[in-house]
Each structure stands twice: as structure tokens, then as C-alpha cells.
């Protein structure tokens, strides 16, 4: 190989590097010197970078950089800038009553976008990114509301929550008819089947629905209404429609009657500012099921 280093390619007159692969030799074409300088420059640049920016991990912290720049601060600055950019519209939203937002198209589009972003960040964990809900967490796209579907009612629910412990929270408690020995097993089975019957679902053969109707009238109608249509004052669901928060099969209904249900939603006042809650109310109302 040493001999090959002094080999000169006869066609180009260039020396070769001494590397040879199956008779193919690599020409030693020198790089321009400015390229070398640029390479050194990048090294100097990298050293400068260590000095200027946080770079080296230490045992319990890291080098802070000469000017105290941190990516976290940069994010905070960016967010502040964004907030100030949105300030005129935010102020307009704060000053506009909920039902009047629609009248101003720009404000409505702004509110919807703000609400959507806030929803995904704060509400999506339980209700789903698009408000599709899950078992025990209401779907906010449908037209069935436990506590009311007008924009003001939605705002109240978001602000104070449901069974959240807040003084103004929406409160109610379904009795645990089985656990607390209010109803016997066979009574629970018959009322469960009665509930399925008023929702238009099939019932178990041999179950006394008339007895179930009487049990319903005595125990359930006070909250769910004589016809089972529910009561939004108490958050008692409508039992006759096609929407079931926990499920409509017999076993689930029996479980609900025996052990009771009472979902909890946190109060968002104090966590979110009133303008964000307003935007959330507008967004949820716009998902499709909003009532006038």
C-alpha cells in the first residue's frame, strides 16, 4: 500500500490516496483551504454556543449560559406575546354577554377557536378531545343534557362543577336502593325492567312490569318524573330516550339502582379565568346540542 501512495493517475495527473478497491484508486484532490477554515469556524462557534447557552449537564444542574437564556423563559415570553396579541378580542369577549357573541362573526369565530383550544387542554381528559364522552362522562355533542343545555346553564356547570364541593356546585344524590336495603333484589329487577320498557327496550320474560311501575312511582318518580323524563333541576337523567350515560343493558341498570351513581365534575372557577369559561361554554354549546 505504501507504494500506492505515490501512484499518480496518468489521466488526471493527480496523486492517489493510496486506497485501492479492486484496482480502483481514489484521487487525492485537495480540498480548498477556506473549507478548512469554515470547519474550524464551526468548532469555535460550538464552543461559543456552550458559553452562551445552557449546554453541559452537571451532577444536579447544568451550565446556565452567559446570558441566562432558557427555553422555558422563551415559551413564557411567546405566550405573553400571544396573549397581548389576542388582548383586544379577549376584552371584547369579556364585555359581551354570552347570547350576544353570535351576533358578531369575528368575535364568534374567535370565541369558538379559544373554546376549542381550552376544551382540548382542560376537558378532553374526561369528555374526549371532541367532546364525544365516555361511559360515565357525558357526550356533549348530543341533545341530551343532565343539568340543562342553554349556554348560560352550560357556563354555570363549567364554573361551579357538579358535586365538586363548591358552594354553588350542582348537587344531588341518587339513593343506593340495594346497598342501603331500600329495595329488595326482585324489586330492583322489576323496576330495572320497567325502566327498559319505558325506554322502548326489550324486557326479561316473567318480570312483573306492573310491580316495577309501582316501585318506580314510589321511589324514582320524585326525581326522574312520573313518566321517567328526568329533571334537570336535580340532574336526574331522562330514562325514556336513547342516550344512556352508563349503559342500557339490564345488568348496568340494576347496578345503578342498587349502588347509585353520581358523577363528579370539578369547579373551574379559580382554575380558569371567566373569559376562558365563557369561550368553553360557547364552544360546548356550538358542538351541536346547544339549546336556546
Amino acid at each position, binding site marked *: 500500500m505504501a507504494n500506492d501512495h505515490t501512484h499518480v493517475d496518468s489521466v488526471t495527473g493527480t496523486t492517489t490516496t493510496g486506497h485501492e478497491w479492486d484496482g480502483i484508486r481514489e484521487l487525492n484532490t485537495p*480540498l480548498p483551504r477556506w473549507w478548512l477554515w469554515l470547519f474550524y469556524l464551526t468548532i469555535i462557534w460550538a464552543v461559543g454556543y456552550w458559553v452562551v447557552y445552557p449546554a453541559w449537564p452537571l451532577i444536579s444542574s447544568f451550565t446556565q449560559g452567559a446570558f441566562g437564556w432558557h427555553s422555558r423563559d422563551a415559551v413564557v415570553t411567546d405566550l405573553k406575546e400571544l396573549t397581548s396579541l389576542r388582548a383586544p378580542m379577549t376584552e371584547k369577549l369579556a364585555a359581551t354577554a354570552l347570547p350576544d357573541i353570535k351576533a358578531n362573526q369575528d368575535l364568534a369565530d374567535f370565541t369558538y377557536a379559544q373554546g376549542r383550544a381550552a376544551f382540548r387542554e382542560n376537558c378532553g381528559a374526561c369528555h374526549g378531545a371532541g367532546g364525544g364522552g365516555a361511559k360515565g362522562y357525558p*357526550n356533549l355533542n348530543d341533545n341530551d343534557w343532565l343539568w340543562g343545555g342553554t349556554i348560560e346553564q352550560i357556563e354555570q356547570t363549567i364554573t361551579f362543577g357538579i358535586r365538586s364541593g363548591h358552594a354553588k356546585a350542582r348537587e344531588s344524590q341518587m339513593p343506593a336502593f340495594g346497598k342501603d336495603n331500600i329495595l329488595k333484589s326482585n324489586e330492583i329487577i322489576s323496576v330495572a325492567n320497567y325502566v327498559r320498557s319505558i325506554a322502548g327496550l326489550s324486557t326479561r320474560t316473567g318480570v312483573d312490569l306492573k310491580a316495577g311501575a309501582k316501585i318506580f312511582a314510589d321511589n324514582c318518580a320524585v326525581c326522574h318524573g312520573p313518566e321517567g323524563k328526568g329533571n334537570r333541576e336535580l340532574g336526574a337523567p331522562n330514562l325514556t330516550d336513547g342516550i344512556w350515560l352508563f349503559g342500557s343493558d339490564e345488568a348496568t341498570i340494576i347496578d345503578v339502582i342498587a349502588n347509585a351513581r353520581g358523577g363528579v365534575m370539578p369547579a373551574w372557577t379559580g382554575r380558569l379565568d371567566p373569559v376562558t369559561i365563557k369561550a368553553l361554554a360557547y364552544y360546548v354549546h356550538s358542538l351541536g346540542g346547544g339549546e336556546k
Partner: protein
Amino acid sequence: MTALTQTACRDAECGLFALAEGARVEAVKMKVIAQPPPLDPAAGATSDTLFDEFVEDDTPLYQARRKIYPQRVNGTYRRIKWAVLFVTLGIYYLTPFLRWDRGPNSPGQAVLIDLPNRRFYFFFIEIWPQEIYYLTGLLILAAMTLFLMNALAGRVWCGYLCPQTVWTDLFQTIERWTEGDRREHLLRDRGGWTAERVGRAATKHFLWLIIAWWTGGAWVLYFADAPTLVRDLATLHAPFVAYLWIGILTFTTYALAGWMREQVCLYMCPWPRIQAALTDEYALNVTYRYDRGEPRASVKKSAALLAQGLPAGDCIDCLQCLHVCPTGVDIRDGPDLGCIQCGLCIDACDAVMAKVGRPARLIAYDTDINIKHRQEGTAPIYHFVRLRTALYVVIITMVCGIMTFALATRNAQSISVLHDRNPVFVRLSDGAVRNAYTVRIANKRSERREFTLSISGLAGSLLDVVQTREDGRFVVDVGPDQTREVRALVTDYALAPPPSTSVTFHLYDVVTGERASAGDYFRGTGE
């Protein structure tokens, strides 16, 4: 000194040639493309002895740039280059100031890249970001035109049109103007730093910086209303980013056209490599007609040789072709990576041939095939129309046609529909199934328009647009040159929708009746 250089020394620039010889040797060492086989056995032997000297020396890993002092030249190709320089730089510097009336809601600049509003204006054409495929078309056109130029006449782009070439040409002209032409500049550089030399260099760099600054200044004018921005820049009210870009482009222009020059072509640009792979035997290239030129000899020596009945070529080895070359290439060594084919050596050689009373175009746009043909005594052939060039023309015509058709028939409105992903469908309290969609309506006119929406493909369904519930007419008004997003709900009352049904959303302009439509799916429960 070799025989080769001795002959050259009898020529006018003998003193300077000794200086340039080192540079030539460097040029030989740099050569990476195969040369034509040595025509003169004596010359070939000379070359070999030259190479043998290097075997003992280690080739350096890095080498300094050798400064090139291109000499002023006049002629046909120089005039073409001047014309191209004025036209291209004129277009670049002045286009932002062209006005084009688009009505009250749109900018009045003929060519404008409006980044904040995501619009590109080109005279009567307005491009939205979603129409970026026009850029694809333009890129295909640019590539094919480049290939076609290459197939017809080699590196036309490199020699005449490339910004690197145009600005370098301008900067070299200023260099000759301030520091003198090749000979004067060389002699001055060999001398000390006199006050005059400092003054001349300072003037050169000042003028370079002015042009570079103007280059950056023109660049930013494409991104904002030019007259307003010029005023803002002058009064220091322009946004920081404008000054930043002017600074960046001032630096790059100054560095690339003033200092880097041929280094950009030799080391940084991929096109020399690409075109080397693209070229073929019929492409015209700036070629030294060695059939006519060799063996080289001075005027006196060739007369002597001819008198003895020995062969003598037309090349008098005056090195004018090398001296005018902006990249320092000796065209007589054959095709070279560094040759941008600007044709200036043709002009230089023609001038010399006229002086010595020999026919012009010893260096010319030609092919190796024709050289061989002439050597064999057959007629030269020119194949401008061949499969490659025809194919390029066909592709260029097709792409132009498709783009023109697409531009001429495109709608002034568009609709795009996005199905909700969570939830995919919603069951309502009465058992009906509903799907929700985000619908974006684009109004590409510069006036406010009203649109209405409808849906087809799903019998027994009802369309509801959340934003238009108040008026119940489903009329969505969209501002001039804007888009608007609305939430559309489609409810199926047939109560038994299949798992998936194709639906089409239709958009109508309430006034003109112009339409657009978009397809999507209605997802059922699948029960």
C-alpha cells in the same frame, strides 16, 4: 522552463506568464475530468515530466485559492453577457415597483409574496397556499428547461443566467474598473500597499457593498409593498426582519460574488456534476477545435514549420483564452468541471485570430463528434432534434398546458370538509344518528360573498350549520379573499344508516350560482 512555456514567452504577455505558470500547474493538478488524449507526443511527454515532479512531493490536503485576474474582453459573447446581465438584474431590481390594480381589498403590487396573509401575487394570478402545486409545476418547468438548455448548448445556465455568474461578472467589472485590468492589477498586487492601491481597493469594496446592499434591499421588497417599505427602511421604521434579510443578502452577495466566485462553481454547486451526467455527444459545448489548433506554435515558428513542410496549427499559444476565463480554466485541455461555458474565451481567441489573420472560431460552440468529422474530412453534423430534446419539449409543453388549463378553469371558491374524529357519530335522544363536520369555505374573490350549503347522497337526512342557526337559511358569508370555518351537522332520520355512506357537500354562491363540492362519509352505528 518547458518547451511549451518557452514558446509562449515570445508572446506579448511573457513577463506575466512566468507569474501565471504556477497557477497553470495548479490548474493541471486540480483537473478531475479526463482530457482528450495528448495530440502531440512531445507535449505529452512534457506533461508526464511535470507530473513526475509531484510524485516526490506530498499533495497537500488543502490548497489555497489561487486568485484569478480575468482580463477584459470584447466580442459577441461578451455583448450577449452584457445584455443578459442588464435584463436579469433589471428584472430583479425593478420588478417590486411594478403596480397592478386588484381592487380595494388586495395589494396593488404586481409581484408580491405576502407571507403574513399567505398569498402570492403574480400580475393577474393569485396563489393560495393550498395551490402550492403550481410551484411544483414551475419547478418541473425550470428543471426541464435547464435540461433542454443543457442538451442543446451545454451550460447555458452557468455561463449566462446563473445569479452567481451575473453578480460575479458585475463585481469583476467593478474590480477591473477600480483596480485595473488583468496586467495592471497583477503588477499592483505584486507591489507593496501604496496609498493608491489602498484607495483603489477601498473604492472597489465600497462599490461591491453598495451593490450587495442593493441586492438585499431589492429582495425584501418582494415581501411587502415596495414603495412603503422603501420609505420605512429609509426612516428606520421597517420591521427588524427586513433589515436582517438585507444584512444577510448583503453579506452573501459580497462574499459569493466578491470573494468566493469560481469556488462556488467548483466546490459548492451541484449543477456542474449534474450537467456532466446529463450532457451527451451532440450537445454543443464551448470547445477548443484541436483539429485546427494543434500543434501549437507562435506565428513565427508556425511559419518556419510550414516552410519546412511540417504541420502547424492555428493556435499561437498566446493564453488569451486562459486570461479572460472567469474560472481560470484552460479550454484547450478539454471539457472541464470548472468551465462555465460563458464563451468569453471564444471572444478572446477571435480577437487574436483576427490580428494574426487567421479564421475566427478556433474556439467555438462545437462537439467532439464534429472535430472528429473534420479530422476525417467529413461534414460536421448537428442534431438539435433528437429523442432527448424532443422529450424535454414535449414535457415542457405538457406541463405548460396543464398549468394554463388549471389556472384558467380554477374556481373562485372552494370547500373542504373534515369529519369529526371524536365522536365519529352521535346518537340523539330520539334515536337519530348525527355526524359533525368542520367545513372550510374559501372565497378567492376580492369582495364579500354569500354561500349556501347543501348535502346529497343520504336520503332522509338533514343538514344543519351551527353558525347559521339564527337565520335558518344556511347562508354563510365569507369576507374578501378569505376563508371561513363552519360546523355542519348532518342528522340521519332514517334511523338505520349503514356503517358508512358517501356524501357530497355542495357549495353555491347565492348571487352568481357558482359551485364547488367536496366528498366525505357519513358514519352510521353499523347496527
